[in-house]
């Protein structure tokens, strides 16, 4: 049985409006029906662009966001339906590492205090001396000097702060650690240190990871299984190598072709699939396949009307695309694709132009829809920030 299993998880944030009374005028569909399972000892990578709901999903697993619908089964218990106090106790076994190493550490607590906070909350260690011993052991594990104990977060470098964040999760000896963009705030040369550290402690402590990141290269490096998210849903899931070798969903293909590789030979010769347009608003997601508004392989049937389910293609490869097999077999051609020499005869130019024109018109409509959606969103109150990757500014100070 899987250690962590998500069944149809949905997180919808209400969009409220009104001068005197808050009226719910719509929802931001941040996470819209995600099912996946994470095996013990594995690393599950969640990848997607900002606004795809990956951070919201990660927080939902820990119930830092309210779950609208669905189950989060952790070791046989459904976390989504636990009372608050029991959920709090479960958090000892499910930990999180945050993106912003400085922001996620209380600036007024020293390292010892930060690291013992969780232990005190869960009654680990009889007294502070016992806790300190444990903390020292973990500090050594994450590569921090013991004299760090009395120091404050602002006295460390970015990489060291992230080590503190990792140590904070480790002192509770959790089973699962959810790493939300663990390296994206760090400098390139430091990223590798932290990634290596994560791998080392996984081996030595038998941890299970859910790694959430926008950087496909990072996710591929560290994960056993990768799930690709787009606009609140999982579009493809496969073992890491398989996903790289045979991306099946058009979005995964585009994403992969867009990730820069630090090698001019590769960069000059690779085929790039440029997506047009922008991510639609999660408050007003497109009908049918969420990706059809930007998909270069979009077909006239199904795509705009039916939402594709994740289909198992064998070898643990799941894809949510109506035409995944057709695309894989080369039976469907991408619009704007240069014609392979093996194909007999060029396609009629007029047809292609017609197609492009149609696509543009479609896009325009979508964009207009997105604009209105964004206007609606502006009137939104409450915890809608998770929907766009949590990058909204903090609420303004009053007074």
């Amino acid at each position, binding site marked *: 049985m899987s250690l962590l299993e998500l069944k149809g998880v949905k997180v919808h944030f209400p969009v409220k409006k009104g001068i005197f009374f808050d009226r719910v005028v719509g929802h931001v569909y941040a996470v819209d029906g995600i099912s996946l399972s994470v095996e013990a000892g594995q690393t599950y990578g969640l990848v997607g*662009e*900002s606004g795809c709901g990956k951070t919201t999903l990660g927080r939902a697993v820990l119930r830092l966001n309210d779950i609208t619908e669905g189950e989060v089964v952790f070791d046989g218990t459904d976390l989504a339906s636990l009372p608050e106090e029991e959920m709090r106790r479960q958090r000892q076994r499910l930990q999180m590492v945050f993106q912003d190493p400085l922001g996620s550490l209380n600036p007024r607590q020293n390292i010892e205090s930060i690291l013992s906070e969780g232990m005190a909350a869960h009654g680990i260690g009889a007294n502070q001396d016992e806790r300190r011993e444990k903390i020292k052991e973990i500090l050594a594990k994450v590569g921090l000097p013991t004299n760090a104990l009395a120091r404050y977060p602002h006295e460390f*470098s*970015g*990489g*060291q702060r992230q080590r503190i964040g990792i140590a904070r999760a480790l002192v509770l000896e959790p089973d699962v650690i959810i790493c939300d963009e663990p390296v994206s705030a760090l*400098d*390139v*040369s*430091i*990223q*590798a*240190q932290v*990634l*290596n550290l994560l791998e080392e402690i996984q081996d030595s402590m038998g941890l299970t990871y859910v790694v959430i990141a*926008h*950087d*496909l*290269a*990072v996710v*591929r*490096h*560290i994960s056993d299984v990768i799930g690709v998210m787009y606009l609140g849903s999982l579009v493809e899931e496969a073992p*890491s*190598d398989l996903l*790289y070798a045979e991306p099946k969903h058009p979005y995964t293909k*585009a*994403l*992969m*072709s*867009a*990730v*820069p*590789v*630090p*090698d*001019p*030979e*590769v*960069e*000059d010769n690779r085929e*790039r699939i*440029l*997506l047009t*347009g*922008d*991510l639609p608003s999660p408050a007003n997601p497109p009908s049918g396949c969420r990706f059809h508004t930007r998909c270069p392989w979009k077909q006239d049937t199904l795509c705009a009307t039916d939402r594709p389910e994740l289909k198992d293609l064998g070898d643990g490869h799941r894809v949510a695309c109506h035409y995944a097999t057709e695309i894989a077999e080369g039976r469907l051609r991408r619009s704007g694709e240069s014609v392979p020499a093996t194909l007999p005869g060029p396609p009629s130019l007029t047809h292609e132009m017609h197609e492009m024109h149609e696509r*543009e018109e479609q*896009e*325009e409509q979508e*964009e207009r829809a997105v*604009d209105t959606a*964004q206007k609606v969103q502006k009137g939104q109150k409450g915890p809608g920030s998770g929907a766009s990757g949590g990058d909204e500014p903090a609420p303004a100070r009053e007074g």
Partner: protein
Amino acid sequence: MALLSVDELSITFTRRGQRDAKAVSGVSFDIDPGQVVGLVGESGCGKSVTSLALMGLLPDKGVRIGGTADYDGTDLLSLSKNRMRDMRGTQLAMIFQDPLSSLNPVVPIGVQVTEILKRHRGMKGEAARKEAADLLDRVGIPDPTRRLKEYPHQLSGGMRQRALIAMAVACAPRMLIADEPTTALDVTIQAQILELLKELVDQEGTGLLMITHDLGVVAGLCDKVNVLYAGRVVESAERRPLFAAPTHPYSHGLLGSIPRLDAPRGEKLNPIRGSINDNIEWADGCAFAPRCDYYTMECLTGTPQLTEPLTAGHQVRCVNPVVEGSTPNDDGDAGRAESAGEDAVGDARDGKSADIEKADTTEASS
């Protein structure tokens, strides 16, 4: 002839009662028309300060700028504020990392674009509006006439960056400086923007100074690359030789520490140890030495000079460059010093570094 030729640029921040902080020293590079030159480095290496100095955007007080930046016969660094203001926009333009904060939030995009056209190109009314729409169209913003009426917050991140690029190229500048133009954007949008920049350079023959931390972006876009560390160029080469044989231990280490999408899974990363703060003063030796896997005693005496140990045009600021056969020594880490590492270094030395070895021993015995 080079469009922009930067020679021995140095930028020092001075504060009363504090020691001068050298942000950049001795940075030189040339940019030809239609060429993309990359300035690569991590935070604090001085790459952004360099761009601000070239654009004349550094404050007058508390900053000392040395060297020259020759643009078409004029030294940008010694121009008056007024002359510089005229140069900006018409001759040089800059694209910033954060498109939202670089646009005025309360003024529609159209007004912001036409303002530039009115001021620098003397266009008026309908003509300016039409030109603005054309510009937006050129940078790939769909339905430009409608977009002109919109405010920055109504545009997505990618669209904003496009609008910013449209404003930058409004007066057909011959030189563009892009400071991390895609860092705030998603990869699929980044690919679009990079494509757009490439087109601009190819079609208009604009010179582009690309400032980034992302070696992947550099590999796809730049013709020449300058790697910066602690305010100095440590390696400078054409794109292909640099990526084929990164010779400074820093660039070498940087490339070894990036997870590559196309690398087989399970391949270990080789991080550079320590952090960016572990510098020594360049005057004391190589600033990178404390983090370097290859350093010797020689590294700690005086500033190393740029040399060309491999091929012409591939400059490296290192007395002990990473060439075939170099093996990292293990003794930088005081806590884990083992004699085995030392032997390995000794064995692997070629003729050049044998001298260093000698210097090493004399240094120790004296």
